[in-house]
Structures are given as structure tokens and as C-alpha cells.
């Protein structure tokens, strides 16, 4: 668990390689939507490219559940971005 004024952000698979980052801690003092979080990340993190993170097939999970872009991210959450899954 990370501090309540921060969120943990994770990137997986091809997205992790394209952005050259696997995780970062990001300050968040009040709840914002996933779409707003993407805007914030693009603005404040040099490593985050909007075209890559907003690609049509990229999925977002908040606290390990896949959500849509209007989902509210609360401080203390774990947010993950990843491409479509290919296991099994």
C-alpha cells in the first residue's frame, strides 16, 4: 500500500517497452477520472507519450479490475495500463 496522497501506476508488456517504464508513483490528492489521469500523466511525466497511452486497444485496471475511462480513480489506488491479453 502506498501513501494516501499518491497512486501507484503500472505498465505491462508492449506498453511498458514502448514507454520504457514499468511503474511510477504519482501524486493524487482528490479523485479524478481515468481520462483526466491520462491528461495529467502526459502533462507531468516526460516518459508518457499520449499516443501510446491512449491507443485504442489499451486497457486500464484500477485496483485490479478493468474499468472504463470515466471511472473515478481515488488517492491510494493502483492503476495499471496494458495491451490486450494473450495468455493461455
Amino acid at each position, binding site marked *: 500500500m502506498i501513501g494516501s496522497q499518491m497512486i501507484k501506476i503500472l505498465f505491462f508488456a508492449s506498453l511498458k517497452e514502448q514507454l520504457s517504464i514499468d511503474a511510477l508513483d504519482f501524486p493524487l490528492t482528490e479523485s479524478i477520472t481515468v481520462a483526466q489521469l491520462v491528461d495529467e500523466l502526459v502533462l507531468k511525466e516526460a516518459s508518457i507519450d499520449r499516443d501510446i497511452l491512449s491507443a485504442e486497444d489499451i486497457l486500464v485496471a484500477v485496483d485490479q479490475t478493468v474499468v472504463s475511462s470515466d471511472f473515478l480513480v481515488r488517492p491510494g489506488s493502483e492503476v*495499471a495500463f496494458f*495491451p490486450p491479453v494473450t495468455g*493461455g
Partner: protein
Amino acid sequence: MIKKVVVQIDDFDVNEETAFLVDISKEVGGINTFLGTVRDVNEGDTVTGLRLEHYPGMTEKQIHAIIDRASSRWSVLGAVVIHRVGDLQPGEKIVFVGIASKHRGDAFRACEYVMDSLKTEATFWKKEVTEGEARWLTTRQTDVEALNKWQVD
């Protein structure tokens, strides 16, 4: 219903998993299992290796949820899902799904449902090495269609 869900780098033993399912209860009459292995050819290219990545924590939660859904639709006495991650060679085991039921129809249905769900829902990603080049695989349309057949109208 007894569940065993493991994501691991190491290989696993099919006998051990089968014995686990047989021993769940003497009510067990049928066990259906699926074993997925690394093929040496994919989309025309020679595959020399496979790297599997996953989202620790979320993956296990998803697999438990998938088994629970299967168990709500069919009669399931026990379920085992083992999925490997890391570097794998052609011929190596990737995934094992085993379902123990009283009657065989339930075991077949639940096992295939869990496999189809794993393929399109669980947070695993495969990177394939083909003659020196590595590429991330993309979702197969056939896998999406395979899952769609389980939709309840």
C-alpha cells in the same frame, strides 16, 4: 468446490495435479483437463521461444473469478489452473486447466469455459521469439469468438 490457482515460472507435474483432482472426493467421476504447450510454428514463422509476462495479483484474482463463474454454471467439485510465466521453449507446457465433476459433461464444459476465458481475460502477455526477432502477440479473433459462444442470451 476446491480451487487451486498458481502462476509460476517452474514446470509442473500433470500426475500431481490429476491426483489432486481425483482425491478431492470419491464423488468425482470425471476429470477433464487441458494442457497448452508452446508450438514451434505460429503464423508461418518458426518459433524459438516464448516469454510470458503477467500482472501479479490481478491475474490470480481473475482466475479465481473465472473458476467461480464456471462453477455457477456447471457442477464443479474441484478446479486447478496453473499458468507458467517467464521464458519457455517449444514443446514446453504453458497452461494446465483441470476440472473434476461428478459427470463428464460438466467437466468438459467448465474446462473449456475456463480456458476460453483465460485466453481473453486473464492478464498474461506473450512475446514470441521467431528467428532472432521478438514480437508481442496480439489477441486472436478466434479466441474472442471462442469466448462469445459462452454468452447466455
